[in-house]
């Protein structure tokens, strides 16, 4: 039964409304980042457009302009401006730190996961399901429980407050999903191709590297994006394992000071943090959707 014109339009309207509702918090958040405090804290009602936008929050967090200077520009006293504050609101280093760790852990994860996933896909062995379950169960441990042992371990290994340390930890958490995801993509590639290649004289390793791997590019892209997003947004372990390195979520949490919560800078940095991940997702969206089912579509 072909839907009527009316039904189609209704569906369109509902779809747009639903998506709009989901977009609203982000839009509100981004809007708040250009509002002066009086517009954010207006107790008489929500302020949509009735304010003069200010780029100051971004100037401080992204351009490294000092708060004090902004205070001076507004004709104020520097002393009044210093009444509360984090180390500094200049977040460019944080964005860089987060990027380094996210990219690093993505690469390491992909390396380990593709090897494991290929093997699990091609070679059957006793206890395979249990092994897979063991990998998945790494995710069950609450991060809180991991903090102390890892802090001690890192101190002994000299990994505390290093990029490498955090990369390793993020890799650990990303591996389960990456392996499962990639395995489902490898499963999609028919075994016959492997066999054909090996009959032709290729070793197992060559088959993997030269033939099969290129065929799962989409899956690798999807896994890469998920790993990147997770690492980019991870909070608890980054908080406890670093001092000088400040990833973006940790940096944002320092904007809650003992005298005030600096909503202006929080919203500005928060909005900036969304952009890179979103771009990635857009690029690989097709593969992402397919991969998330983790192969359960096969019976």
């Amino acid at each position, binding site marked *: 039964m072909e839907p009527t014109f009316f039904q189609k339009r209704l569906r369109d309207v509902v779809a747009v409304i639903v998506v709009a509702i989901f977009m609203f918090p982000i839009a509100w958040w981004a809007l708040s980042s250009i509002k002066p*405090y*009086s517009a954010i*804290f207006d*107790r008489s009602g929500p302020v949509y457009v009735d304010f003069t936008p200010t780029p100051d929050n971004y100037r401080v967090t992204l351009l490294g302009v*000092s708060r*004090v*200077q902004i205070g*001076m520009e*507004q*004709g*104020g*006293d*520097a*002393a*009044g*401006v*210093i*009444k*509360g*504050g*984090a*180390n500094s609101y200049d977040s460019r280093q944080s964005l860089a730190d987060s990027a380094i760790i996210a990219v690093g852990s993505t690469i390491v994860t992909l390396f380990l996961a593709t090897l494991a996933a290929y093997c699990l896909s091609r070679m059957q062995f006793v206890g395979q399901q249990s092994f897979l379950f063991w990998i998945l169960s790494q995710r069950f441990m609450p991060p809180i429980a991991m*903090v*102390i042992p890892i*802090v*001690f371990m890192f*101190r002994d290994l000299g990994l*505390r*407050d290093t990029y490498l340390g955090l990369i390793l930890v993020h890799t650990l958490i990303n591996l389960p999903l990456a392996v499962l995801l990639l395995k489902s993509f490898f499963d999609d590639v028919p075994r016959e191709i492997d066999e054909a290649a090996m009959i032709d004289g290729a070793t197992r390793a060559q088959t993997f590297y030269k033939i099969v791997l290129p065929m799962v590019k989409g899956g690798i892209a999807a896994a890469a994006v998920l790993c990147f997003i997770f690492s980019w947004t991870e909070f608890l372990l980054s*908080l*406890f394992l670093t*001092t*000088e390195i400040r990833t973006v979520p940790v940096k944002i*949490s*320092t904007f*809650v*000071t*003992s*005298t*005030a*919560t600096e909503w202006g800078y929080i919203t500005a940095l928060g909005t900036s943090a969304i952009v890179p991940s979103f771009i990635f997702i857009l690029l690989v969206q097709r593969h992402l959707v397919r991969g998330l089912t983790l192969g359960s579509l096969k019976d």
Partner: protein
Amino acid sequence: MSLKDHDKKTFIVDACNDFTAKRLTKRDFMRRMAMAGVGFSAFNAGLLGGGRKRGGLLGLGPDEAQAQDADMLKWLADVGKPYAGTKIRYTSEATPPSIVANQLVAGEFTKATGIEVEVEIVPLEQVLAKATQDVQGQLGTYDLYYLDQSWMATFSQDVIDPREYYDQNKELAMPGFDWDDFSKPLVDGIAMYNGKQCGIPFDIPIFILMYRKDLFDKHNIAVPKDLDEYLKVVQQMTEAEKGNGIFGTACQAKSGHYSLECDWTFALWGHGGSIFNKDKMFVGNDEQGVTGLKFYQELVKNSPPSATTWTWDGQGQALTQGAAAMAITWGEDFPGFDANDSKVKGLFEALPAPKEVPGRRAAADCGFNEIPAVGHQGGSAIALSQYSKNKEAAWLFMQWVCSKDVMARVSTLGGGASPMRNSSFTDPRVKEKAVVGPGTTRHFDAIKWTIDNQMGSEPDMPIWADLSNNDIPVELGKLLTGQDYNGDAKACLDAIGKIVDGKVADAGLR
């Protein structure tokens, strides 16, 4: 250090001296600094005076702003030579002393000694978590600790007695440090545990009364003299101003947060109660205790509804936005009321808190060194870690940041944060700021009086951090939000008593 470095440092210090003595103009000074590779942030440059406004950026005359103690800097430069290039760290709450220290350190301390200081500024719970983690593993990640007075017992074995260290390391002892200058009540109340001095008092948020004089005048209300009158005034004010969206008071009653525990102890002590008795049993549920909690329940009823989700910063924000007419809370909030973007600039006055009713319980009747009084103090100290790998460098910094000069300036630059040293209270720079405006110090009299006369201190015992964060404010929160206890103050306090007594016994502290 190479000859070149030595020359450079001497050059810098000499330039500083010349500038201070007005032998150099600001522009020449800056040029020399640039030559030596020393950059100045806008802030630091402004500190040097000669800014757009008359009297420099901070309303201080050029003399005051430049009065960085040149002698001290020279001493630091000499003594700090061997340690140049080390990096020391500590983690702190974003209270004014740490923030200001952070701003000043690069331009002064680091320039003089070559020692870098990294201050990790995070919310208070994270400071505790990181310090706990550090001492558990003796990691030595942090060279100094910023310790809240309620944690002193927990960390006392991890820090070095600063006076002893001072006496034992004469070559590193800063001349003119003047230990007696520190307010004795503050040292006793914040930094001492079991006879050992654990650190140097660093900041002193303390409860005082802050009220909207304009509203009091408008309704012809007199300033309350004791807590009974205070409650009546709060209720009166809510009645009168509710229509304008203004409540009598604002509380920091966030469920499960230390701030609620602070409010509660003030109410408790203010009614003659105490947390522990001589035998180290919980007595917050005795007659005075119940009266105190009922009093607090009334205060919460007269606060904006979101008060049960606020800690001190939410409360401060409410007062600054004019949502409440008065509060007995941290004096640290006061300068914020006079900020340029504040709705209540110049409208608040500060006084010591109204008297306890019927009177204070004697400290001798309390356990664990608890000192009941209505002026609850939440001071912190800066302490030298046993596990630090750079003790000497950290010690130099610690002395610098607690020196007479820096502490006086912290009071003025740090938006009017209350001083630790007696000399700071009388320092001309501080007295000059006792006017309406950002960084005001006009509440200092109230603070000093409270420190000297009605300062209340929490018990000192190793599991206090646990009790005051995880147990007491959670049960109180259940009562205040109606999750449990049905509004029955006694039932709630009895439950708390059971938990506290149990944990104290379990830890072998009784």
